[in-house]
């Protein structure tokens, strides 16, 4: 009787084990397309342009010779999907260009060392990439160029305007965390000061025992980054605004923060020579972006109009349809028409 019971237990265990592991197809977490979307170099059906040795996920809307509006996404390591409300501007006769920065979204990935080995010059890779994107889409010499950047994209846009002040006829920036690196650090600290016992912090840290990725294992690292909660009670992200993205770029985010920390990147450099107007947006619900912080950041621009967008948080300036239609978009249209 005991032997029979043992035999049955053995058969049951074997069956459970077999069912558990053979009924579904085993998959690897680093295979392209399994957990995160393929990038443009892995999926040729995606819209792409080739600039500076990188294949970038990019598309443009509106008449080719209209005022060029280049949308710059946040991150570093975000993508342009959450900025797509800006497509509305094409109906105004503008040429609206979106691109995922290298190593971000659906654009081609590069090693961490390809950035960090450049030292302080790593940010120049991003400026030169933007320069080439503008050149790719600019059809006539007199075509006006407007940069529209959100968060990290606003820092990048500001740094570009300071570096090439004659190349940009208008600057639209939405809540750059800071322009000088010390300010960036302060802002990140303030906006990510989660409670030690909170769900968000534990969700972020507990995952590390399930999935670990080596340096430059992009599929794994990007996936882990995407798992972090999109909700942030401090900045108001994910509160009621949809801030969808295609795919995060963990390696470039890590690399550019490392470079920023080490070399104190300054995105306000040269802005004293930038004489074109600046339209600056910040949000009412971002607790890390009070009026005093907005004033501090805007002090780097010479000719700036500051707009506080009500009832939204950090992303909602662009992603919240109501705020976009009633506040952000009309201001942008007036601004561009005045250039």
């Amino acid at each position, binding site marked *: 009787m005991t032997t029979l019971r043992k035999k049955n237990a053995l058969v049951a265990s074997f069956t459970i084990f077999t069912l558990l592991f053979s009924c579904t197809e085993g998959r690897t977490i680093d295979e392209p397309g399994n957990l995160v979307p393929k990038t443009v170099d892995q999926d040729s059906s995606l819209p792409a342009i080739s600039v500076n040795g990188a294949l970038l996920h990019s598309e443009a809307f509106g008449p080719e010779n209209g005022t060029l509006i280049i949308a710059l996404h946040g991150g570093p390591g975000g993508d342009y999907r959450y900025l797509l409300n800006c497509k509305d501007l094409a109906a105004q006769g503008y040429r609206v260009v979106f691109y995922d920065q290298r190593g971000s979204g659906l654009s081609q990935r590069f090693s961490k060392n390809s950035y960090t080995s450049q030292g302080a010059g790593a940010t120049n890779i991003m400026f030169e990439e933007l320069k080439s994107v503008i050149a790719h889409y600019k059809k006539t010499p007199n075509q006006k160029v407007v940069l529209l950047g959100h968060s990290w994209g606003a820092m990048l846009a500001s740094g570009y305007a300071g570096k090439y002040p004659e190349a940009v006829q208008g600057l639209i920036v939405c809540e750059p965390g800071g322009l000088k690196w010390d300010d960036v650090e302060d802002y990140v600290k303030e906006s990510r000061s989660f409670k030690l016992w909170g769900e968000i912090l534990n969700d972020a840290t507990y995952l590390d025992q399930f999935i670990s990725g080596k340096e430059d294992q992009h599929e794994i690292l990007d996936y882990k980054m995407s798992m972090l909660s999109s909700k942030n009670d401090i900045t108001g992200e994910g509160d009621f605004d949809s801030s969808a993205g*295609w795919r995060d770029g963990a390696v470039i985010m890590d690399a550019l923060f490392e470079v920023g920390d080490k070399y104190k990147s300054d995105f306000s450099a040269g802005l004293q020579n930038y004489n074109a107007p600046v339209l600056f947006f910040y949000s009412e619900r971002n607790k890390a972006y009070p009026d005093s912080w907005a004033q501090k950041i805007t002090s780097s621009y010479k000719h700036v109009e500051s707009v506080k967008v009500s009832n939204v948080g950090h992303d909602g300036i662009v992603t919240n349809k109501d705020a976009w239609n009633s506040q952000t978009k009309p201001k942008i249209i007036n601004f561009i028409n005045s250039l």
Partner: protein
Amino acid sequence: MKNNKLYITAAFFSLVSNMALSQTVNWGGLTDKERHILNVNVGAEYGAIVGLGYGYKFNSKLFPTIVNIEASVPMGERLFDDFKTKAGANVRWLKLNNLQFSAKAQGIFRKYENENVQLMNFGLDMSGTIGYYRPKWFAALEIGFDKAIVTHFKHTDHYKEDYPDVKDGWYEPATGGNFYGAVQGGYSFSNQEVYLKVGAIVSQDLKTKPQLPYLLQVGYNYKLPF
């Protein structure tokens, strides 16, 4: 006879795993009569953690063994959406006066859930501990490896809004692995014990660090004398 069988099973499990593990105990403070060890702990390990454990000690002159089960949860608004359970054995392999070496191996089942995904993982935690054990106190060094062997992914509609083609199911081979090292020390009194464990965690490539690369545990053992 029954106990011997369990002992052999536990020892075999330890042997095939090359290592063995256990609750943090003072090997020098355990008497033959103390067989049941209840444990509560709090600390940091991939988050802010609280845990409970139970160990049963098999007396043996050569290889005393504690088989144990543990459960822990990280803090947060949703307390039981994430948890970890472990079961295994801790074998004291070597005793040279007060110097003792033990090893543990524990099978792990753990779950993680957030707005994007639910993960269920089977893993193995192995470690070796060498230390100086006295009846009233101990100090030791533990080196271990926690392998996430096979993981089931089930994504939420929220994640599928971003990436509808994501593939759910079992993922293998191993989806993760981390080494850890910790110093531990404790004080024993009557049939009780308090201990402190402090250490660091690094990913299996020995370069990448988890977001919380530290390990901290304050624990209390209550040993039942029957």
